[in-house]
């Protein structure tokens, strides 16, 4: 376990789920309840003060179904980490990162738009790219790539 992993484990106890090193990149998993606090902790205490990216991945057959992942960048050490949490399908809600970075706003709206995950405390959780009357969440794996059944473009 790396230094950072130890510190996260110490700080978040059972809410810290583990770590993976792969292809030179570090990924840390935390529980959903510690999602915002872990991000804030990495940002304030460890200098990962820049939110590079925030996105989700849908693992259709897995439980919990969704991965929510953020890439955090540290300008001093010139390194980055990936922070991840797991989101179940039946209760697809996570606390919003907008309290830490205002820029998480649109990323979260995009995730909501494309995956249907909801963010507690988000100031304006409406669709970003698709029209407001659109139904379904296209980047979910059970959404057909040809579009909805009633689409005229099929």
């Amino acid at each position, binding site marked *: 376990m790396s230094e950072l992993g130890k510190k996260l484990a110490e700080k978040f106890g059972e809410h810290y789920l583990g770590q993976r090193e792969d*292809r030179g990149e570090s990924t840390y998993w935390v529980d959903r309840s510690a999602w915002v606090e872990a991000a804030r902790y990495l940002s304030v205490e460890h200098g990962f003060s820049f939110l590079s*990216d925030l996105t989700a991945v849908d693992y259709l057959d897995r439980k919990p179904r969704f991965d929510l992942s953020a*890439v955090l960048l540290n300008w001093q050490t010139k390194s980055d980490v990936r922070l991840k949490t797991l989101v179940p399908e039946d209760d697809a809600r996570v606390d919003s990162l907008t309290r830490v970075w205002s820029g998480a706003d649109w990323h979260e709206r995009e995730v909501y738009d494309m995956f249907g995950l909801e963010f507690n405390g988000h100031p*304006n959780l409406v669709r*970003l790219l698709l029209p407001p009357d659109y139904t379904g969440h296209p980047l979910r794996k059970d959404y057909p790539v040809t579009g909805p059944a009633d689409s005229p473009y099929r």
Partner: protein
Amino acid sequence: MNVDEITSEQGGFSTAALGDTSDPSYTVMNMGPQHPSTHGVLRLVLTLDGERVVRGEPDVGFLHTGIEKQAEVKTYQQALTLTDRMDYLSPLNNNLGYALAVEKLLGAEIPERVSHIRVLLCELSRLASHLVWLGTGGLDAGAMSMFLYCFQEREKILDLFEMMSGVRMMTSYITVGGLMADIPEGFLDQVKRYLDGFPKELEMYHGLLTGNSIWLERTKGIGHLTRQAAIDYGCTGAVARASGIDWDIRRDMPYCSYPDYEFKVPVLQEGDSYARYLVRREEMEQSYRICRQALEKITAAGPYRTSNRKIVPPPKWEISVSMEALIHHFKLFTEGFSPRPGEVYQRIESPRGELGFHMVSDGSNKPYRMRVRTPSLSHVQVLPVLLKDCLLADVVVVLASVDFVLGDVDR
């Protein structure tokens, strides 16, 4: 008309941003999505107090083409062509970001010559992109001649791209494992000839704009972005560097063969439209320097892609003499390659800022998920901050100084 009525009716844009719009005497004006100065299809909902902008809300998605979803049903080689179409002003940078991400997934080694060619192409592409920004930016502020001069120069770079790949814009030339083909004979000479004339052009733009009192009046102090706001909103590239953030991925988290090159990273503290102009102008000079150095480093002959037959097909002649080569060829064109499961995030410095490819592999021959973190998305998101309290006439200047591409925002 109250702005909240519009928001609830049409949705799609954030009410979280700055500015109290409750005063009933305010005018709500719609700008775009077909306004020429929005550089694509961006819709802005402006709440105005007379000529002063109280709140400017961007509404995006008009160019959404589902590239991320599309990539999931294409093999790794096929998905490359989608990346050209995101930031259509610098397709080679998108190609590079994608190729590097997949190569990281595969753990592929790329020959040094290829890395140098990639650097040269990306810097040329950066020049072409910045020329469009300078030309259209000038045009938006009323400097019509800038547009003509810059597009003329950009056309010459596109001619170079056409010479090497056959295509002016959607090149798909930087592929996984190397390049689509070797650079054609005489290409480096043509690049050299182009570069020989470039400093004079840049000097002319400098003379036309930098000290021009109209340009100064239109851009100085307009669209101010503080350092903290730039960090909060995820601004990168020239926008961040004009607000005092000393960060360039080419220098700080290098990829390709950038560590072998000497260049300066311009940083300014002012954070206004003029600072963004100065930073990009300096960047063009530095790109020119890098191109010059690359020309020295690229050898005339050598490999143009990796020799790993699991990633790139064998040369044609080998197929007729080697059974193994034939099998490799067949496997690559029917099935492609399958990286072992896992995920990577690869960032590069595109002309607009941090372009990140987040690739997830499930061990099959298609990306399980391709997420593209585009610089333009963050830069459009920060617009309400930039537009607050500026005049209606300055909106176009602010938009131009940020330099976003809507294809890049909407994907």
